[in-house]
């Protein structure tokens, strides 16, 4: 856990500045970058030099990012270990991908304050700074814990709890067969039963990895659609968000070349604005816009910003849009509050239900802060300030989910080989532990509690 392994993290704030840096520290740092770098042989280069090249994703052999890599060998580095800094383009997607690749290649995600801690433990920072180091660890951890706790209310955590419970019951079943071999009230767990259970949970974890909202945020940002009738201010809203947040326009690999998606970073939450081109090009051409186009955008959205005009009564189209967003995550924006109110608020409130409403005058740049707060709120039920932590805890989740999946695959391999169930179960238990780390539940007594509540044992 300490000192010898190689750690990695994004060491620049997300979405701010023209470059983002992934930093690695530890004895494997140079090996890891060498394995994923196309360019010079970085093992041969001099210390404290910087090199141009490309990061290759070893799983797909695709170019993930163009980078500048700095190699700094121990001991003259911040941590007194080998340090590698990978300079990526600014913005979220590329730096994320590079970090994920580095983790996949054997780096461990750094704990809060861990670079500084290593610098201290390796004697880089002098004695008088020790207190500061401890404060830093505490502060960063508290913040991370806070975020982790907030996320625990989410769907992710309830899913994980469900899978864990299912694994725990399976493990308890194997355990009761071991510790109470003569207890005849429960069927002896068979390889077939175990195979069924591991496959089930494995499929669920895979599903989670591919669609989980948190995972999606990490890789792609929150898919956000702006919908509404013509002329309600969709375009102004887009511009306001973009201006306010220094949008990063990225060409996403793998998507159709001519669709441009725009990213904005709202209070640390990356939004991927869906079909912005559509909004821009069609705002003027009244015939082509409207409900159909918006519906298209809705399909792939995690969050919908639904704009209404304060200056007009609700129309048939508005009502149909309300029907279209029912059951989805949306925020209603009542724009043009600078103009006379003609909108029937009672009717609107009824249609909105328990979702949020924000009033804006985009023309006068009013209400944008409130809107941003509402966006942040809908994902973390609280305000999160801009920083790397939101992001890091998400990478952590993905990493743990992958570890859980790997452990479960080990268990499935053992099953196929015909290993005894008590051996298979070792990896099932590890899966359960990895999932537990995601939701911060690592109590080891749970198994024994489960054992005695599930089965009637004793002499």
């Amino acid at each position, binding site marked *: 856990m300490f000192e010898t392994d190689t750690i990695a993290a994004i060491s620049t704030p997300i979405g701010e500045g023209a470059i983002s840096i992934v930093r690695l520290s530890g004895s494997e740092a140079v090996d890891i970058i060498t394995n994923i770098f196309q360019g010079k042989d970085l093992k041969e280069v001099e210390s404290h030099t910087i090199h141009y090249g490309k990061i290759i994703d070893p799983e797909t052999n695709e170019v993930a990012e163009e980078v500048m890599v700095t190699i700094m060998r121990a001991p003259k580095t911040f941590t007194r270990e080998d340090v590698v800094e990978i300079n990526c383009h600014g913005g979220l997607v590329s730096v994320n991908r590079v970090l994920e690749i580095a983790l996949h290649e054997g780096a461990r995600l750094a*704990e*809060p304050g*861990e670079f500084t801690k290593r610098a201290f433990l390796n004697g880089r920072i002098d004695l008088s700074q020790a207190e500061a180091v401890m404060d830093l*660890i505490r502060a960063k951890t508290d913040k991370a814990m806070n975020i982790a706790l907030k996320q625990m209310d989410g769907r992710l955590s309830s899913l994980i709890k469900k899978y864990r419970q299912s694994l725990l019951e399976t493990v308890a079943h194997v355990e009761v067969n071991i*510790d109470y071999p003569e207890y005849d009230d429960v069927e002896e767990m068979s390889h077939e039963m175990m195979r069924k259970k591991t496959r089930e949970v494995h499929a669920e974890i895979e599903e989670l990895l591919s669609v989980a909202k948190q995972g999606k945020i990490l890789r792609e940002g929150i898919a956000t659609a702006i919908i509404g009738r013509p002329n309600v201010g969709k375009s102004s809203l887009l511009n306001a968000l973009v201006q306010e947040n220094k949008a990063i326009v990225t060409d996403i690999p793998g998507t159709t070349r001519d669709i441009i998606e725009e990213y904005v970073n709202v209070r640390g939450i990356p939004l991927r604005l869906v079909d912005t081109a559509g909004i821009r090009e069609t705002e003027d051409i009244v015939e082509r816009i409207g409900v159909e186009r918006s519906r298209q955008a809705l399909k792939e959205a995690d969050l919908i910003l639904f704009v209404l005009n304060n200056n007009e009564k609700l129309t048939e189209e508005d009502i149909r849009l309300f029907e279209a967003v029912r059951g989805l995550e949306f925020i209603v924006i009542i724009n043009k509050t600078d103009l006379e109110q003609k909108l029937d608020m009672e009717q609107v409130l009824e249609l909105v239900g328990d979702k949020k409403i924000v009033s804006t005058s985009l023309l006068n740049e009013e209400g944008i802060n409130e809107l941003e707060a509402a966006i942040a709120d809908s994902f973390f039920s609280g305000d999160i300030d801009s920083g790397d932590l939101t992001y890091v805890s998400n990478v952590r989740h993905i990493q743990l989910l992958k570890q859980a999946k790997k452990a479960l695959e080990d268990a499935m391999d053992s099953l196929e*080989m015909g290993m005894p169930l*008590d051996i298979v179960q070792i990896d099932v238990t590890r899966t359960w532990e990895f999932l537990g780390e995601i939701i911060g539940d690592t109590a080891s007594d749970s198994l024994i509690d489960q054992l005695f509540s599930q089965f*009637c044992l004793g002499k």
Partner: protein
Amino acid sequence: MVYDAGHYDTIVIGAGHAGVEAGLAAARMGAKTLMLTLNLDMIAFMPCNPSIGGPAKGIVVREIDALGGEMAKTIDKAYIQMRMLNTGKGPAVQALRAQADKPVYIKEMKQILESQDNLTLRQGMVDRLIIEDGICKGVITETGAAYHSETVIITTGTFMRGKVLMGDLEYESGPNNQRPSIKLSENLEELGIELVRFKTGTPPRVNSKTIDYSKTEIQPGDDKPQGFSYETTEYILDQIPCWLTYTNEFTHQIINDNLGLSAMYSGAKRGTGPRYCPSIEDKIVRFHDKPRHQIFLEPEGRDTEEVYVQGLSTSLPESVQHEIIHSVPGLENAEMMRPGYAIEYDAIVPTQLWPTLELKQIPGLFTAGQINGTSGYEEAAAQGIMAGINAAAKVLGKDPVILDRSQAYIGVLIDDLVTKGTKEPYRLLTSRAEYRLLLRHDNADLRLTEIGYQLGLISEERYQQFETKKQMVQDEKDRLRTITIKPTPDVQEMLNKANATPLKEAIKAYDLLKRPELTYELISEVIDSAEALPADVKEQVEIQIKYEGYIKKANEQVDRMKKMEDKKIPDDIDYDAIGGIATEAKEKLKTVRPLSVGQASRISGVNPADISILLVYIEHGKIAKIAN
């Protein structure tokens, strides 16, 4: 009238399963040892079930043997039935269990103690400890004998302020109507030791002659019994079976009707009982939809008619116990010889102990066994031998011996107790061990014989045998690496017989043995045979090769754990001076006083951030020292 009764290196209070191992280990290491017990006829008495071993526990018995203890050898001479459990499962979870002949076990163990050099056996009730300058220096008995010593080990089991409960009857008593130990408990309290109240229970015994066995299922021992001890060469072949029957709806009705009469359900506040050893009334209440519960009828010995009714532990009134027994098939006319009862007793809060089992507050004072909040003969014996070793080591100026969680179930047991404490009587389970693939019953000797030998608890002769075995295992593994098996008709036929896929190309014997469906014996058929190897060598070769990948993975985890264990926490650390550690964690750390960062990380309520900060603080201290 107090008189000077002599001076010893180590005094052991109690001669149960913890006491005998403690006394023997200390005496054998060279400490002049006194054992005091309430009743010399009750040495190593089994007040509850007549069996030793089982999953996890059976492995502990082998570990005790590898360290030079006595439990394994004694049960090998005193069993009426021996079974290897979990034979259909992996090697890590197989374990022996013996049905014991209780009187023979006592007789054998007493003889061992009586013939041990350096060991004095005496009957007596200890009332209090002699404490000088905060250090334990001996004991004083109720008869006024003051025994002086360098170390004292308390192994009083369930005797401290013991109270027997049956219906509304309750009286102060040790198990089986022996005298309870009252004053010692009060003395410990005066000395500031924190005590808790625990509870356990035992079922009634019935007369074998009155059981209709035709209504029960036979539970025989193994055809070829094995021994717990690595030294045992002769096995008792004349075995006695146990019998299985079940409770039914009538039994459950009787219990439900009389629930209010149970000592444990009468509403009075009682000690905490173990979940894994519930009374029959607990089972009926907690699992009310179960139509029946298993009842095992276990003979208490070869020359007695008493039969232990496993599954009917109860604190209901005697009259109800008669009714319950008579409702069970096979026991309709059974005569109860002793009623079941619950017993409450004082235990010490085990987080007050160092991992050597010495009390932090009172140097020189050790505790072992049920007094530390455990249950089970094996758990007691395991602590006994470790307390004996460490008490003697202290007197003799040797290093303490602390087994870690990857070395032995004994290490898991003691680490759990002193690091996490326990809220109920603690029982070992295989699931408590995170490295159970390493903690197998087949390799207890490989894990611990060296330690036992270094302590002087393993004879030279046995050590040489052990070394020879180790060498043979290594040689045979090396040999299998060099042998190539080709897809000849003989080989394919052997594979076919074993339902294994045929070979496509030549393979090393070593790699072929990794297939789960193949055994060492099968592969021996198709290769040049080595000189005849003993069965335990073959077994070891097969397990080590077959599970190599898993063992390697477990060893990697152990290596990571060891790094944290190697980070020692200085004795004089002042947790209050560390700003960043959370208040709850600080309190826990101050109580447990972990010896290493690894141990600290296992305390519940101490989280990773606290550990990080602790690590920085310790390093800070080191740098400060160098600077000075």
